[in-house]
């Protein structure tokens, strides 16, 4: 979780991630951010995330992202 937060704040400085539940839907994260974050996650967590995973539901909150990582790890 901490590692994820670090990735996030580094990729998107100035964004308040805590408590957000609609990061995508509210347009806080753009596609560039998503791709940056995803490639970082793949690198750091050594998981494979595919295009099919790139849906808003998986990126709307930090928890959702974490859940995605867990699912792909399993």
């Amino acid at each position, binding site marked *: 979780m901490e590692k994820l937060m670090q990735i996030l704040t580094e990729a998107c*400085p*100035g964004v308040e991630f805590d408590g957000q539940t609609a990061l995508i839907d509210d*347009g806080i994260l*753009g*596609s*560039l951010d*998503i*791709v*940056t974050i*995803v*490639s*970082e996650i*793949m*690198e750091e967590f050594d998981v494979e*995330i*595919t*295009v*099919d995973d*790139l849906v808003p539901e998986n990126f709307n909150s930090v928890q959702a992202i974490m859940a995605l990582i867990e699912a792909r790890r399993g």
Partner: protein
Amino acid sequence: MAFTSLAFLALVGAALAVYSLAPRRLRWGVLLLASLTFYWLGGRWTVGYVFYTAGTVYLSGLALGRLNRLRREAPPEERKAVAARCKKQRRLVVLWACLLNFGLLYFLKYWNFTAEMLQPLLDRLGAGGQLPVSHLLLPLGISFFMFQSVGYVIDVYRDKYPPERNFGKLLLFVSFFPQVVQGPISRYDQLAPQLYQGRDLDWDQLKYGIQLALWGYFKKLVIADRAAVLVETVMGDPWSYGGAVQAAGVFFYCIQLYGDFSGGIDITRGVAQMFGIQMAENFRRPLFSTSLTDFWRRWHITLGAWMRDYLFYPMSLSKPLGRLGKWTRRHIGGTLGKIIPTSLATFSIYFVIGIWHGANWRYIAYGFWNGALITLALLMAPWFAAWKRALRIDDRAAWYKVFQVLRTCFLVFLGRYLTRAPRLLTALWMIKETFLHPQLSDLWNGTMLTLGLTGFDIGVILAGMAVVVAVEWYQERGGQVRLTLERQSFFVQWLAIAVPLAVLFCLGILRGEYISSGFIYQQF
């Protein structure tokens, strides 16, 4: 068939009437009939292309659906093997669907351009011969409905939803009449259920639909069509004007484009809403974009989203790019190393967006311009952040927002030189003229009144744009125009009907080319 024609209004009226009378389960059929009628009236036999696209995506959708089911229903022990086999076939199907559609699109829209480019090369090689040139008409809205349809196939491929089994219904999704000509590029899962549902007409939806369409007509007829006259004059012969007038031409082109495109989309969405159908938003007040990236999130949203979901994501996460990423991280390192693959993908996307607009060097340059700027911004982000810190700039300060908006407007404005000038070199020359030889006095010495518009017309355009900006500003700050209106007294609400109608009549519909009778007949 133009949205501004009487025939279109008649079609909408008739479709609404039949729709409301038809039994619920047949209503999608009414929409299909209206859609085919619409396309037939506008494009006659080119309606064949719609059938072609619908047919190919229908069949590939079915095939993909079958493969997906196969994979899903395979017994656990065979699942892996089946999945592997299916994967190959699924890819093949999706590849074919893309090839059949984009191949045709390429042939219709881009082949002549390619041939033109290759011919000199061929000649130089002494290969002789003449590359054939296509004389086929470009079917209306082909770029829109093809992208929308291919999106459907890819979604089915990704197993987002099962394929549509009823060809008629899929055909309706491809050809839905308010959108077939100029988008928005809808998603099947968002639009299709609404099309097939057959909701009863509803007073609220009718009202909102009409209001939205009126707003669209205002932007199109009062602002855009008027500005077009001036743009036509300047861009038809930019060599006759100084840099400032050329810039004015581009400025009015920006207005024209926005009014025309967003107005058209509002009409589309308004008409759809009359049937109770909510279409995707395509413009979200692009005038208030704070960066070029932000601009593309607000301008032609559905195209950007399509590119993102079906091109940018797959590309960014593709193996070659992944490998490149690993390599850059290792050898370049830092932010730059991390960002290079993404930048590459970004750049490619804007390049494709450029080409999507048309087969022309100017559009390629336009794509290049957007891609380069955005990529540059991406790569330079750390420096920018450092500068801001050094200059103690507060990101949230109002003046900084204004600065960002103006900066973005300016960059978009420069890009428009590329899309509207008669030729690429002319566009570059015009930009040079604008800055080096503006001849500013042309703006007030009467030259502006020789461009086909009277001072009154120019005033109408600017005032119209002021209204648009004011309304969007209100919305940007969270205001709900319709709700605010509904709270007013009957008289005010009536004014909100009568005034726009009167404006539309006097300044839009009835404009025509008014030639004072003294001018019509000048010479025996």
